[in-house]
């Protein structure tokens, strides 16, 4: 009996060791987001407004050393500097946003910083990214998700308030937020392993919350 237990433990130890590293999703940074979809007067999507609230640890990391006037307080200009730096850094990865559409997908233009504030110990940043050309969703819906393929950062929509909101949208338009469904993505995930641009497995996509915007 003891040997059986030993044997089982041994096999478990081996099994745990053989599991690919991706089995151990390790997000270290957490973002709670509210995304606004801005429509133009022609009823097309003009761009997206992102509000990201970072976890306490990342907020401290981002603001550490920003206190240029050494007064020990976090001030608006200091937070704004972080915001400007972040949107400059993540431009090349499309602000962590992937589109899925038949045919054309929208192209991002330059982002504009909007506001920054502290909510308790959490940094909250808001910025806006217009599309290069307004995107028509009357015939085909727009599907997008904001996530980190490496899954170092976890992005989740705000569940309490409205995670996705439509701004200036025609009445027939609606946004639908679908829960992350890792189990349904498994085949896609397994086949995408190691093929991601960053070299890492595209684990983040399994946890991505997809949003569908349509006007019927």
């Amino acid at each position, binding site marked *: 009996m003891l*040997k059986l237990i*030993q*044997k089982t*433990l*041994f*096999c478990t*130890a*081996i099994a*745990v*060791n*053989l*599991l*690919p590293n*991706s*089995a*151990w*999703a*390790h*997000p*270290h*940074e*957490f973002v709670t987001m509210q995304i606004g979809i801005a429509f133009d007067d022609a009823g097309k999507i003009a761009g997206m407004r992102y509000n990201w609230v970072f*976890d*306490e*640890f*990342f907020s*401290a*990391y*981002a*603001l*550490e*050393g920003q206190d240029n006037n050494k007064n020990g307080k976090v001030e608006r200009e200091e937070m704004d500097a*972080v915001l400007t*730096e*972040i949107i*400059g*850094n*993540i431009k090349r*990865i499309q602000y*962590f946003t992937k589109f899925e559409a038949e045919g054309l997908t929208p192209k991002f233009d330059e982002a504009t910083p909007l506001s920054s504030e502290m909510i*308790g*110990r959490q940094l909250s940043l808001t910025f806006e990214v217009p599309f290069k050309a307004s995107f028509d969703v009357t015939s085909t819906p727009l599907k997008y998700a904001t996530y*980190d393929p*490496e899954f*170092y*950062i*976890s992005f989740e929509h705000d569940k309490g308030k409205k995670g996705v909101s439509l701004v200036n949208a025609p009445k027939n338009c609606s946004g639908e937020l679908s829960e992350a469904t*890792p*189990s349904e*993505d*498994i*085949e896609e*995930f*397994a086949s995408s392993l190691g093929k991601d641009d*960053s*070299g*890492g497995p595209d*684990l983040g996509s*399994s*946890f991505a919350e997809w949003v569908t915007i349509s006007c019927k």
Partner: protein
Amino acid sequence: MQVKSAPNQRFFVFGLIAVVVLGLLVYAYGSAAYTQFIGWVYAGQKMFHGEMTDNLSKFADSASSATAWAVVFGSFLYGVFHAAGPGHGKIILSTYLLAQPHEVRKSVYMSAAASILQGIVAIVLVYGLFYAFGLVAKETKAAVAWSERLAFALVMGIGVILIWRAIKGFGWIGQKAHSHNPHGDHEHSHDHGHDHQHDENGLCSTCGHAHVPSSEQVSKATDIRTIVGIIFSIGLRPCSGAVLVLVFAKFAGIPLAGVLSVFAISIGTAITVSTLAILSVQARKLAVTLLDGAVGKAEIIGNGIALVGGAALILLGYGLMQTTFEAPIRSMGL
């Protein structure tokens, strides 16, 4: 010569179990069970992270023994959970422990030393560089990367050592006599003191078995170097969680609570890693017991593990090394 069938049968059964487990693993990897599993890990990670930010924030708001204990306990649990995954450290340690007979005590010491060192490295990289040079975490990314590169170079080095030993053990090169050494594969390590007297025959008067200082002491010295190499290959890579805890604690004006938290994480990590280390040592003992009467086989299996494990470590170290030169968008590029 009569061939014993029992050990062979046991060996066969053991191999069969391993194949079945591997098969299940491969199946699980492509199935929903696997995703449920990563979902579970993610939920755990998120929960423990939330606990840590809460506990440290509460301590920063009002420092008391109650809030301090909450920090320590939460960090400890984070360490236990966080270390449960197959980090490179556990792969190195279990390969080393499976390849040759070792004492349980030694494996626990190694696990504990590696975990504590990991905490100390995090403290040095975050607090040390800040208080000595005024560098904030955003400015120490290069230092962290070099610490990691050193760790991964050691991973590859240990792989080379294991392969070298396996090659010698198989008698492919070097002294053939080694594969038939009179110690066989008995399960105790020779870490008794070497301050004993030797007579003319090379026999040790205090311990009563044939003793060949030239080879054994050399291999022991090599082993100590390997052990230190393993501890550093694990410890030099600071855990991101610990680094973030320290940054937060310093920012919130409670730097000592950060140190407390990181040591609690290390102790939690040590417990999980020790468990795996003990399993590896026991697993080897079990395998040898199952193969009783077939001493040569146990040695062959040990060398086989060293050979395959060594190659795996070189690949792992190489892969990890490459990631330190890539520039993924972590921490929003800050």
